[in-house]
């Protein structure tokens, strides 16, 4: 028996850690990993509610979210590689072309 509240609490904490990572890290790779972590927290909620309601729709949607996360990571990593070729850095605060 797992109570729904425990699952929600864990997924909320995972999401918070992801947000903190996105806000405070400078390395673009780690920021991408934190975005993945937030998507996984959302997935955990999907699974928990799917089990709570006894329907399988949440699990199907979690699978779809996983696919979108894979697409996102492919494009994001390609962007990081392109950025490294052009600017020779992956630190996001060295990339301030829009600063004016």
């Amino acid at each position, binding site marked *: 028996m797992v109570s729904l509240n425990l699952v929600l609490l864990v997924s909320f904490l995972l999401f918070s850690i992801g947000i903190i990572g996105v806000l405070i890290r400078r390395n673009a790779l780690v920021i991408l990993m934190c975005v993945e972590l937030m998507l996984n927290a959302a997935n955990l909620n999907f699974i928990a509610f799917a089990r709570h309601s006894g329907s399988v729709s949440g*699990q199907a949607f979690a699978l779809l979210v996983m696919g979108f996360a894979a697409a996102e990571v492919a494009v994001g990593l390609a962007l990081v590689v392109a950025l490294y070729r052009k600017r020779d850095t992956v630190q996001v605060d060295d990339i301030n072309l829009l600063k004016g």
Partner: protein
Amino acid sequence: MEHLLETIGRNLFAIFGVMALGSAAFMVASRSAVHSVLGFLFTMLCIAGCFLSLEAEFIGMAQILVYAGGIVVLFLFVVMLVEMSKAKEKEVFQLQSRYAIVAVLTVAAAFVGLFRKVIFGSASPDALVLRPELARGLNVAQQNAQAVSRGLFADYLLPFEILSVVLLVALVGAVVLAKKERV
């Protein structure tokens, strides 16, 4: 011994959840990108354990295959491409990290305050039962993968097809972005 095993079995989700939280914190806090990737790998494995303990067997296995097998390797390749020649980053964290942490903690406290009753109150009226459809005596799919496939290919066929197009576009986009000379 049996008592201990039974306790562990009952609290499997909590164990995996705490391990996932710990390794996620390690991932955010560690200095080297390779350590971050290892923390990410362990987090994904723990979340897969959470899925398994929530009886989403197919999703748990897909999580292990997609994340631990695919995405982590992709991350490691890019770390190898990008980070090796570089010295250690001077500053790991942003200048405004103190404000960011304070802001996130404030929002978290506000959230917990708002949902205090939901999160810490007495558990939801009907606790989660194992396999509610079996408990209710309905004759639905016997296997998790069977049920998920019915949901995915019967009820949500259109989102699935859209996802396949999105994956194709992402594939082409990644190739074009990472190419050396622009067309």
